């Protein structure tokens, strides 16, 4: 049962030149890209002071730190941590809501099917892009300069940086909306505002609600870190405990964050399904 298939290799070669005789440029593309990627990688390792000895001593330090983290133990500060966690969740919720409320009107201005004029649309889009180009942590630092240390600066930081993201996402959702309903409203004599209210919004709102819920989820993560620069919440406690090397408290705080994020994930997943699912049935 070792029958060789009777094919003529030369004939096959002749019939499929694109498989057997690919030009050198297409054959070499992948190896060249890989080699360049690797070269930059090695250059990066050298330039960024990677050395095996540093790596190994760091790893042993890390192992030691992990040993010190077990078991997680809040000591006597559990009430403070719970309050800080509440603060973090509040920051995420308020910041996201504020961002969504502010972004909705602006996103209309950035959508092609609402504002056809590119002269008006272009600056709005670039404005949103520049806001998104600046990290939440930087916004937090700026707001701390304005309203002082504390969670309120965190709320404003999240609101501003999400404003940029929402503006883009919402305007994409609006551009993806079905234009026929808008035309229907126009045909029955509706004004431009009616077109938006009754033609666009019913289509777009469930999508937007889904995105907002998703952002509340991801902002719970962002809200945990803006505390590191002093904008309130559990990140403040975490950074402090890391600086004073209280590893058991650190691991407890990390666990708290993981549990909180998982909880929010679960709730917003259910809500999103409820909103989008109902939409799909209707």
């Amino acid at each position, binding site marked *: 049962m070792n029958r060789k298939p009777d094919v003529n290799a030369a004939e096959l070669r002749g019939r499929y030149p694109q498989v057997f005789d690919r030009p050198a440029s297409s054959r070499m593309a992948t190896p060249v890209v890989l080699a360049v*990627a690797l070269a*930059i*990688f090695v*250059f*990066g*390792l050298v*330039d*960024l*002071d*990677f050395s095996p000895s*540093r*790596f190994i001593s*760091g*790893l042993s*330090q*890390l192992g030691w*730190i992990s040993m010190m983290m077990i078991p997680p133990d809040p000591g006597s500060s559990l009430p403070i941590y719970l309050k800080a966690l*509440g*603060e973090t*969740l*509040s*920051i995420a*919720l*308020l910041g996201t*809501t504020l961002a969504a409320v502010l972004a909705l009107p602006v996103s209309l201005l950035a959508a092609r099917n609402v504002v056809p004029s590119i002269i008006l649309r272009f600056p709005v889009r670039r404005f949103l*892009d520049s806001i998104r*180009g*600046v*990290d939440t*942590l*930087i916004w937090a*630092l*700026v*707001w701390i*300069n*304005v*309203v*002082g240390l*504390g*969670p*309120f600066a*965190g*709320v*404003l930081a999240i609101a501003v940086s999400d404003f940029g993201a929402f503006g883009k996402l919402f305007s994409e959702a609006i551009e993806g909306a079905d234009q026929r309903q808008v035309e229907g409203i126009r045909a029955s004599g509706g004004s431009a505002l009616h077109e938006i209210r009754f033609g666009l919004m019913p289509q777009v709102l469930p999508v937007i609600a889904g995105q907002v819920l998703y952002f509340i989820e991801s902002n719970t*993560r*962002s809200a*945990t*870190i803006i505390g*590191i*620069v002093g904008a*309130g919440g559990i990140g403040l406690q*975490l*950074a402090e405990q*890391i600086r004073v090397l209280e590893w058991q408290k*650190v691991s407890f705080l*990390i666990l708290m*964050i*993981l549990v909180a*994020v*998982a909880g929010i994930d679960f709730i917003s997943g259910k809500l999103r399904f409820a909103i989008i699912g109902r939409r799909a049935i209707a």
Partner: protein
Amino acid sequence: MTIAVSILPEQQLAGLNAAYRKAVARKRLRLLAGLVLFVAALIVSSIGAEVNLRTFFTYFGNFISYFDRILTLDSGQRVWTNVGEWFWGLHKWLKLLGETLLISYVGTLIGAVFAFALNFFAAENTSPAPWLRFTVRRLLEFARTVPGIVFALIFVIAFGLGPMAGVLAIAIHSTGALGKLFSEIVENADMKPVEGIRSTGASWLSCMRFAILPQVSAGYASYALLRFEINVREASVMGFVGAGGIGQELIVAIRKFYYSDVSAILVTIIVTVFLIDITTGWVRGRLFGKEART
């Protein structure tokens, strides 16, 4: 012009109207209940977050004037009147920016390699054993839920100050994020090639290499590029905790009120992020285009 509109008999119309009103009323009630709950949550959280509208309105002028100040040179002129003075440290900043890009590149690459190695175990359709899938999934979840900067804080203590901590922090976070995305691509892959390869007696590894990999590699590259884009932003703040890159300069400038420096560094960061976005967007477009054609 006459239009014939058929009008329903009165009592039939009344019945339909009532049914419509009832349906709408129920929907409105549900919306209202949701809204009340939501507003209640907002109020509770605004107490939790110490929202103080008076502070906000008193100091909101500061927010506007902050931008006024960062756009003014020490000499009192607007920054764009003397660009050389504004970007006095451009050479140093570009070097740090280069370091930032390298941090995100090396971090993304390490993360992508680890994610690549792990994702076949995390995907529903290719994982060799359920317990393995469970473990790998939890591991990836952990790596992406803990924020990168928290890893950086810990790594700065373990590996010392400098870009190495930043690279490792970004690598771990990227492993988590990419591992999940990669495994989702694998779950969407066509399983018929796998059956074909397996029927020739190939091992699990060969199945992955010859049946799955050709289907998913463009998607992998696309997600890795997207991650690189995100990581550039992330790396620009790693310096806040001493993990290398331009963040170090930025936080010093903000904390010490070197106003015009703040705007100059921010502008360089924003321009770089733009350029990276555009480049990776273009490359990703080409990758997906190629995938669609074959």
